[in-house]
């Protein structure tokens, strides 16, 4: 949790935290050692304090005695003041001396000194009182006693001082020796904590810089090889580097997507180009063939119209009808420059063709049609039904007896498709030929017609290889060709 908290901090805060933590550790260790060392030094300082106090005590005793002596000699107020001041100070100093009975020589001597001082002060006070009462014998006696006690005291203080100095010196030696150990110890602690701090800085700063290093390595990798083969980086933190890493990963994904999209686009574009070229080729081929067969269509229409008018004037109605159908048939072929036409127009062309063929073959072809009128506006590629009907007339019912051949055209709706079926009751088509036609292996008919192959190829191209063309046949059961035009928004 804490690690995550640290990982999610801003880099600037992380750096501050790192230096703060290490500085605090170093400072803490320093303060700890400093305070303890101070304590130790204070102890060393206090080692000889007892000697100092004893010396002060001795000095004060001498002052006290000289004040007493001076007063007893001259009764001077200065001496009395000195005596009282020293006496007051002595009382304060006495309180610091041990008062208990112990088996420690120094302590016991302190007690003796304290009590002797007390006796001295009492005797000195009595001497001063006697002086005031001008009782010479008494104050002389008291003074002598004081002098004796002072002598004892000085001896005791000197002896205790010596004893304490010896003990204190031993303590001092022991302390300084111990202090040397503590110095070594403190140096050791400093060294250990410094190493710890350095390692801590290495760990924490590496945790900050490691993602950057990885990012830079990944950037190198991308620059040297294809971005598609580069794996995204793992995001360890939510700091600035984490955000940059995340953005880097998104960028990498975008680049990969972009490359994939461009690749697909290129493929699609090349496919489209190829398809368009093929469409164009086939259309041109079909048109060329018709143009070749219609030497001068306009001239032909005009002549056919003139023929029709002549026939009308002569009252030959059937001739008029025939010539008009012929004119319509050829006009359709000439005018349909566009790729797509309405289904109704295609059906009219078939009607014209059948009429012409029936005139030509004296009504031998039976033509039946069943049309769903709602589908007449469906947009289909031009010239797709007439070639199929022509194929049935030319090959399907060719060898049948006159009046037996029958061609059926049915337009109906099946699901979401507009189905156009052309059937005949002729001899049928060999399966080999069907297979060749379906595999685009059969060459277009050399008879001058557009041909099934052409129709099929164009349908494939137009409907993107959706299988809209179906051809079935059995021996002596005729041929059935079905075109299934998908009913989509664009072609209705």
């Amino acid at each position, binding site marked *: 949790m804490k690690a995550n908290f640290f990982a999610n901090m801003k880099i600037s805060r992380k750096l501050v935290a790192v230096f703060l933590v290490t500085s605090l550790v170093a400072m803490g260790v320093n303060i700890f050692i400093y305070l303890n060392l101070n304590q130790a030094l204070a102890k060393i300082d206090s080692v000889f304090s007892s000697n100092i106090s004893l010396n002060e005590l001795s000095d004060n005793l001498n002052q006290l005695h000289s004040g007493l002596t001076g007063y007893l000699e001259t009764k001077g107020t200065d001496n009395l003041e000195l005596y009282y001041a020293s006496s007051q100070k002595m009382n304060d100093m006495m309180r610091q001396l041990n008062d208990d*009975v112990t088996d420690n020589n120094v302590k*016991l001597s302190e007690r003796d000194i304290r*009590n002797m001082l007390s006796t001295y002060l009492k005797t000195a006070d009595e001497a001063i009182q006697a002086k005031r009462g001008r009782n010479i014998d008494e104050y002389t006696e008291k003074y002598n006693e004081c002098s004796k006690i002072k002598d004892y005291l000085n*001896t005791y203080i000197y002896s205790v001082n010596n004893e304490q100095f010896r003990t204190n010196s031993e303590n001092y030696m022991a302390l300084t020796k111990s202090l040397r150990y503590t110095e070594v110890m403190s140096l050791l602690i400093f060294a250990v*904590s410094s190493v710890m701090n350095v390692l801590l800085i290495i760990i924490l700063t590496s945790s900050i810089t490691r993602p950057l290093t990885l990012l830079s390595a990944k950037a190198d990798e991308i620059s040297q090889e294809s971005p598609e083969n580069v794996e995204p980086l793992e995001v360890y933190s939510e700091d600035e580097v984490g955000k940059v890493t995340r953005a880097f990963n998104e960028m990498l994904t975008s680049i990969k997507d972009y490359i994939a999209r461009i690749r697909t686009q290129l493929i699609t574009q090349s496919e489209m180009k190829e398809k368009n070229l093929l469409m164009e080729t086939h259309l041109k081929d079909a048109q060329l063939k018709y143009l070749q067969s219609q030497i001068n269509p306009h001239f032909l229409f005009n002549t056919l119209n003139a023929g029709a008018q002549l026939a009308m004037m002569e009252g030959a109605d059937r001739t008029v009808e025939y010539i008009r159908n012929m004119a319509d048939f050829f006009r359709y072929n000439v005018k349909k420059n566009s790729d797509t036409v309405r289904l109704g127009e295609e059906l009219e062309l078939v009607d014209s063709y059948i009429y012409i063929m029936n005139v030509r073959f004296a009504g031998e072809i039976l033509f039946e049609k069943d049309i769903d009128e709602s589908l007449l506006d469906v947009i289909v590629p031009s010239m797709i039904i007439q070639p199929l009907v022509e194929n049935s007339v030319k090959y399907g019912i060719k060898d049948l007896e006159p009046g037996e051949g029958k061609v059926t055209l049915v337009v109906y709706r099946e699901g979401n498709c507009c189905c156009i079926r052309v059937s005949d009751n002729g001899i049928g088509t060999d399966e080999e030929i069907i297979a060749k036609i379906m595999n685009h292996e059969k060459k277009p008919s050399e008879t001058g017609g557009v041909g099934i192959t052409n129709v099929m190829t164009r349908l494939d191209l137009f409907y993107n290889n959706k299988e809209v063309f179906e051809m079935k046949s059995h021996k002596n059961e005729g041929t059935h060709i079905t075109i299934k035009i998908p009913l989509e928004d664009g072609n209705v």
Partner: protein
Amino acid sequence: MKISKDRIAVSVLAGVVLVLFFATIAGLFYYRSMIRSLDEVQEEAYAEYTRLYAYIAEDPESKISNRIYKEISEYAQENGCYVEMTGQNLSTTYSKADRIDIAISSKVDGIILEGDNSEETADLVRKASSKGIPVVTVLSDCVSSPRKSYIGLNNYSLGKEYGIALGHIAQEKKVDSLSVLILTDNDEGNYDDVIRTGIQEYAVGRSIELESSVVDTSTPFTSQEDVMTILDNMEQIPDVIICLNERTSESAYQCIVDKNLVGKTTVLGYYDSDTILKAIDKGSVYATFSIQSRYVAEQCVNALNGYIETGFVSEYLSSDYILINKENLTTYIAGGDKNEG
């Protein structure tokens, strides 16, 4: 793979940091304990007691005084009191009077004094009493003083004991008469005279010829020289030399060894120092008298405690001498060791 290596490295470093962290903390604790132990260097352990008594010896260097002080000190500590040998461990050597005065000035709870008959000592005992400090005397009394009790050695009967010992020597030597030299010391107020009287009384009616000389024991070095001089000046070496203190006893023994008088004369000594005991073992010293120091010590402390607690104590508490001769030497040493042990 690289990441996992990094992680291992980081984990190892973190482990090292953790170890160093604990090492630092442990170091700081150890450092703290080191600093604290500096206090222990300074402070010496000591016990506290309710009362303080002063022991004033005739001669602070004397072995017998030191032994009694040791016994008194031990017994007092067992009873919640502490006894200091006043004047000891000081840079100056003080006289007995000064030591008593120091004890009075330092307001001790009681004084155990090796008494004497001097007026100065009696005055000081009086001074102590006036300040409410009870004084008991030991080994020798201070008759004219208001001391509360005397823990007593009966010096007259000691003299008698010396006499009896002389009788034993005469019997052993199978002689009818004995010439005896009594070496006393020149300390004022000791009871050598009383002892000598006891010996003399025993000698009455017996063919024991007594002679006495004073040995200067005022300084540690004069005793031996003086004994040698006395012996040199004598026309005839006495059959027995009676010594009434410890230093004289050792000096006399040393003299008869030096003068090759072993066998010709013998010593009746005082106190049971190692030297004298060895001399008894060798036969150079016939016998020595010693006091029951532990018993004396107990009586001293009990007398002071009793007086402080009840205000009353017997004026005289007797204690006996022990005669140590070749016969009971081994038993005595064994008993002493046991006691010390």
